[in-house]
């Protein structure tokens, strides 16, 4: 399984990860090795097999649809690296 450098850069962009050139080269090589291994899955004919997304399906109860008290704004903001006026603060998105 070969991955181009462009593909590695595309994946890193989708995942919002800033990588150095050295990291890109290393992850390219390692991801190729892992993808070679998982290619084994293609051996199996699964045309009539349904997918399993969760093994808990069928046992998941629904809760009553009513509001409940949650955590306070202050408690949640306490961990923010930057906050102002009871909100998370970020660099400007629009000029």
């Amino acid at each position, binding site marked *: 399984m070969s991955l181009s450098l462009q593909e590695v850069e595309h*994946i890193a962009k989708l995942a919002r990860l*800033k990588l150095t050139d050295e990291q890109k080269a290393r992850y390219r090589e390692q*991801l190729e090795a892992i993808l070679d291994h998982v290619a084994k899955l293609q051996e199996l004919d699964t045309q009539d097999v349904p*997918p*399993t*997304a969760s*093994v808990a399906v069928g046992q998941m109860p629904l809760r009553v649809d009513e509001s409940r008290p949650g955590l306070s704004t202050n408690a*949640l903001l306490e*961990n923010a690296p930057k906050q102002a006026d009871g909100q*998370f603060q970020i660099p400007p998105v629009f000029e």
Partner: protein
Amino acid sequence: MSELTDLSLKEMQTGLREGQFSSRELVEAALERIAQLEPSLHTFLHVAEAALQHAKEADKRSTIDNGQQLSLAGIPVAVKDVLTVEGMPATAGSKILEGFMPPYTATAVKRLQEAGAIVIGKTNMDEFAMGSSTENSAYGVTYNPWDLSRVPGGSSGGSAAAVAARLVPAALGTDTGGSVRQPASFCGVTGLKPTYGRVSRYGLIAFGSSLDCVGVFGRTAEDVAVIFEIMAGHDPLDATSAEVEVIRPERSGAQSKDKGLHGLRIGVPQEYFIEGMQAEVQERTRAAIAQLEILGAEVHEISLPHTEYALPVYYILAPAEASANLARFDGVRYGPRVEADTLWDVFFKTRGEKFGAEVTRRIMLGTYALSAGYYDAYYGQAQKVRTLIKRDFETAFEKVDLIACPSAPTTAFKIGAHTGDPLAMYLEDVFTLPASLAGVPGISFPVGFDSTGLPIGMQLLASHFREDLLFRATHVYQQATDWHKQKPNM
């Protein structure tokens, strides 16, 4: 006071009830032992100073209540740093959560606290529970108490090592692909991965949401069962936690001695005894199975034909789920931020600099598997093969009550042995992954030692929600053997 730390959880319960010692003495002894051994083990990321105060309060309450004690009143436990405890930091072993103080407590921990347990600290782990050695912790490796040049396993290596080194009688871990069972095996302790959905995941920092389970380490199956039965059961805060009654059998030594394992059918899957695994692991596992037979179990050869596909399935599904779960770490709401002029660059730089190598690798792998054009070939196919693995277990459990197999292909390996070779590290999980994918419960317990004196563990697996059978079989085995009583020379 060092002998107090040698007591099992059951013995601590009895001693406290009978007034042989106080909770303050227990917690003091634990804190002293932690202070003495931490420099060589590095099992904790945070030790709770308030534990001693809590112990004094527990002692006061027990005088007032006079015998009407809570079941875990005054007993110290440790918690893996991926579970939140209000008032204690939670890093999940990552720099991206450095300094995070969770505003709420995980349900599993809360239930232990409500039963009187005292959380003495948060244990080291592979970053975001991704790893099999604790080497991926951003805060340094944990050392195996049996041999300090070796890993304790992972990802719950800190919890396993803390129980093995007699720092605490029990510790919580989490198991997504083997992260309780494999370190239990490497550290010579008993470790349970419950059925998926049996214990609430509320307050567990998510890795692979369809696989994550809160588990527990102890020195005996009995101790593990005590903690499990308190944690288990439906929680409205976790939609995947099952509304299935928890089986809480009466346990007494006499009863299990009489019954032994008569009537219990144990299957031995041929696919778990493979070329390349350490011969001593295979020998000791076979010997333990023979012992279970002597104790009354019927042993059958069985087959789980899709076992070899578990590793590729897992390394698509878990990273795919992780890539989505870890999208929340962006330097905006919690953890540190790497400042930049644009929001876009805040995301890229914070994530690029604060995630470690293994976490980055898995986010990349998962993102690739879910990306346009590759979804069906990777994620879709892996979900279908997961069905085949699940069916293997369903078929097997029509014929047997339990499945017995090794917990890991080797004993604890040297620190650095798999550095730079992720695939070699992934192969360490080859025996624990299938049960995780099928969602069935498993327990790992010590069944001997290799020629260098390292512990060997074996797993028993049961069908969904039959943890009681795991406890029964392991307990009967532990009544007849003393492997679980051996301790590292520290």
